[in-house]
């Protein structure tokens, strides 16, 4: 059974909205959930719970729950710290400690947080994890990240190597390789650290729960096919994916959250409403975009504003698929739990090869009737970014829709140059506009 203590029904409306910031009810709900998880983590050791840490892509939340772990996700910590404008200092601290300026700032924000006494995003002290589940999925840096944490804390570490879909498909040998690692390496380690015996039926139970939330999430994200789109699939999207990409997949709370959310969104569709932005509802949908790449967290609001101010809504994004690609049919399958976990890991967005990623975006542009593609290229993230310029060209070529390229970083405020990005976005919007007018003139 889950130990998360979130009374979901009581939440909506409980907290008054702070000055001038608009959110959907579900957004409040998930914020509470995330904060509650931080609290759980903070008290875990006091209440005798073991703590695990793992990464968002390829996170085996259901499996970790089988061992009663409190679950920490260092990437999420970093992003939350970024949003709360605490990451800059953490990164500098890590750099002072000898980390290179060139490497991923998520890692540095995490290590910097440790140096600063492990104070988490909500101000509570986070525990040192008892086990690091190194889900080595779609990002090379993960491996170094946990090696670094291990070197510092001597935490028990267990590696789950997920092979890359180099030729664009998952073969049986890959699945077996992952399953075997689960059986022979990961599960025994988790049993040993937690002292809890693995119970596959418990896993099945959680996975059943996962599929419900997955179903609803897909419906939410695909609601953006409507005109106007009732959601922003990138800026809003990050709130929608929060619970399911983190410590909540497989919990009843998550299922509840997604059904509430789905209800809200379907209502918006019926009322033909646009997305909710921090400054209120977006009235006129002028541009529909697909976005590739993670957002910037340190200036998240300002960044979002550059879009909604000009009437741009993101109808689909690849970032909202980092913790699992569900919109092409994958669901966790309680009937073959380990295989299904393996396939989940193998299918994460950054584990797809380039042709697959390009296909996916082209499909989005088509199905969501987008005006074009915007790439937010993140300095930190080679996994996402190396090669995005080719993507841009290929997609432009294949769809005939204009694409634009901006650069920023996840949590390093030094790499968010507001004027620069605004300049490019403005030019891009004006360009779409001009093109539209030109085509209209022809017809």
């Amino acid at each position, binding site marked *: 059974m889950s130990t998360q203590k979130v009374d979901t029904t009581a939440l909506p409306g409980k907290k008054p909205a702070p000055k001038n910031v608009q959110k959907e009810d579900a957004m409040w709900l998930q914020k509470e959930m995330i904060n509650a998880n931080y609290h759980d983590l903070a008290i875990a050791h006091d209440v005798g719970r073991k703590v695990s840490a793992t990464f968002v892509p390829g996170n085996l939340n259901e499996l970790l729950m089988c061992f009663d772990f409190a679950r920490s996700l260092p990437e999420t910590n970093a992003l939350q710290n970024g949003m709360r404008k605490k990451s800059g200092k953490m990164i500098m601290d890590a750099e002072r400690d000898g980390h290179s300026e060139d490497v991923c700032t998520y890692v540095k924000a995490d290590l910097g947080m440790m140096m600063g006494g492990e104070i988490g995003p909500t101000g509570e002290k986070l525990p040192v994890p008892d086990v690091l589940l190194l889900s080595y999925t779609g990002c090379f840096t993960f491996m170094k990240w946990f090696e670094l944490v291990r070197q510092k804390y001597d935490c028990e570490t267990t590696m789950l190597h997920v092979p890359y879909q180099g030729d664009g498909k998952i073969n049986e040998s890959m699945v077996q390789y992952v399953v075997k690692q689960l059986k022979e390496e990961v599960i025994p380690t988790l049993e040993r650290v937690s002292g809890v015996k693995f119970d596959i039926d418990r896993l099945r139970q959680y996975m059943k729960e996962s599929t419900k939330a997955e179903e609803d999430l897909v419906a939410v994200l695909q609601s953006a096919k409507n005109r106007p789109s009732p959601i922003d699939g990138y800026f809003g999207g990050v709130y929608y994916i929060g619970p399911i990409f983190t410590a909540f997949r497989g919990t009843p709370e998550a299922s509840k959250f997604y059904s509430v959310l789905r209800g809200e969104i379907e209502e918006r569709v019926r009322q033909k409403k646009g997305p909710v932005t921090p400054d209120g509802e977006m009235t006129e949908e002028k541009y529909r975009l697909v976005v590739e790449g993670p957002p910037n967290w340190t200036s998240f609001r300002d960044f979002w504003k550059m879009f909604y101010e000009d009437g741009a809504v993101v109808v689909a994004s690849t970032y909202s698929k980092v913790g699992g690609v569900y919109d092409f049919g994958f669901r966790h399958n309680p009937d073959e739990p380990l295989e299904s976990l393996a396939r989940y890991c193998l299918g994460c967005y950054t584990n797809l090869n380039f042709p697959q990623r390009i296909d996916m975006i082209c499909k989005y542009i088509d199905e969501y009737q987008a005006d074009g593609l915007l790439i937010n290229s993140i300095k930190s993230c080679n996994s996402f970014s190396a090669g995005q310029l080719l993507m841009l060209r290929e997609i432009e070529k294949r769809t005939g829709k204009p*694409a634009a390229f901006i650069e920023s970083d996840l949590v390093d405020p030094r790499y968010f140059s507001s*004027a620069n990005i605004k*300049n490019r976005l*403005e*030019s891009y919007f*004006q*360009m779409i506009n*001009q*093109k539209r007018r*030109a085509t209209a003139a022809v017809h």
Partner: protein
Amino acid sequence: MRLFIGIDLGSTTTKAVVIDEDRNVLGRGITNSRSNYDTAAAIAKNEALVSARFQLFREALGRTKALNGNLDTFIEQLERDFRHEQFIEQLADLEEVCQRNAEGRFGKDTAAVKEALGETFKRLRDEAHELFAPGAKRKSDFFRDIAGSRYLALGEAVAKEAEVRYDNLLNVFDRSIIEVENRVYGDSIRHHLLNALDRTLKALPDSASKREKISAPIKGILDTAMEETYIVGTGYGRARLPFSKEHIRSEILCHGLGAHVMYPGTATVLDIGGQDTKAIQVDKAGIVESFQMNDRCAAGCGRYLGYIADEMNLGLHELGPLAMKATKTIKINSTCTVFAGAELRDRLAIGDRREDIMAGLHRAIILRAMSILARSGGIRDEFTFTGGVAKNEAAVKALNDLVTENYGKLTLNINPDSIYTGALGGATFAWRAVVEEGKTAEAR
């Protein structure tokens, strides 16, 4: 008459272009971008309007045929005399500010410094006419640069003679020039022109006899109201222009359109400015299809040449000709603007020739531009090179070589007025807004 104006507020220079109802370019104006964007824009605009008036003089005088055959000489003389007038006024202003700034600044040396200042300015005034003599070469067209370089030269001599510290003179100048260059002398245009006219008539005795015939149309034009019907601002600093959003266009669009207006066959545009390099693809109607810019690193932009010029103690326009004398091209790998000087020194230390290094530096800049171009989708025929660096013949040569090597033979368009491309695009947008879209200027 109705005029449409585009102002391009660049990181190093601010440019303005004025066009008329038939989209003829009447005037162009340029000034250095300075701390006060508003002033920079105002000065560029004034300069463009002045140049528009000169254009109108030329046309008017051409119509009267009073100066048969001598029209060009006359107008050129008039322009030089006008610049001279302007210069004298600014110089007087500068002297006053310098004297004020020197007050009490140097303790017991103050009096000596002030005296040296007086002497320096006297010499500056005395030689001013040489600066504006026919055929004279100036380091730049900006007051800051012209006055600055002569001040430095004369000041050094004066300081030596008067035994005051040269540094003190420099300091006063640096402090004062900002104040002076941020003044707009818009009101003086009329009387400068009339004074200039007097000078010109004196300088060209042939024309003196036709004084009335010449002056009448000029005065007529001076009395014609120039209506600033619509202004569009663009460029790096556009967001700081006191214009409403309606009056602002992205510089990418303006450069694309400007290049299209200059060369309707343009498909690819490369613009190298002070701090950014842009590669733009446009369609047959001048609409931007895609674009790329340098990222947050200013390596290989125009400012790079500025650092090099400083290091070599040369004017910007002297770099190109020097590089053209190269017999081979030294390979330069780093294009970090700030390190440019160090790299140059390194190279000189191991015995490479200045000219060859310069050729290498130019090639390095263009190499960077080539990758940005490649990023935006390559180079297509016709290819138009715009921005300040297009004035540099060595950069143009390097570009030509590299384009030919990598894309084969193409038409490469370079306009002598390429630096005004963005402003021209802006002016064209202004014209469209009124003539095609029926907009009226919004209140500022």
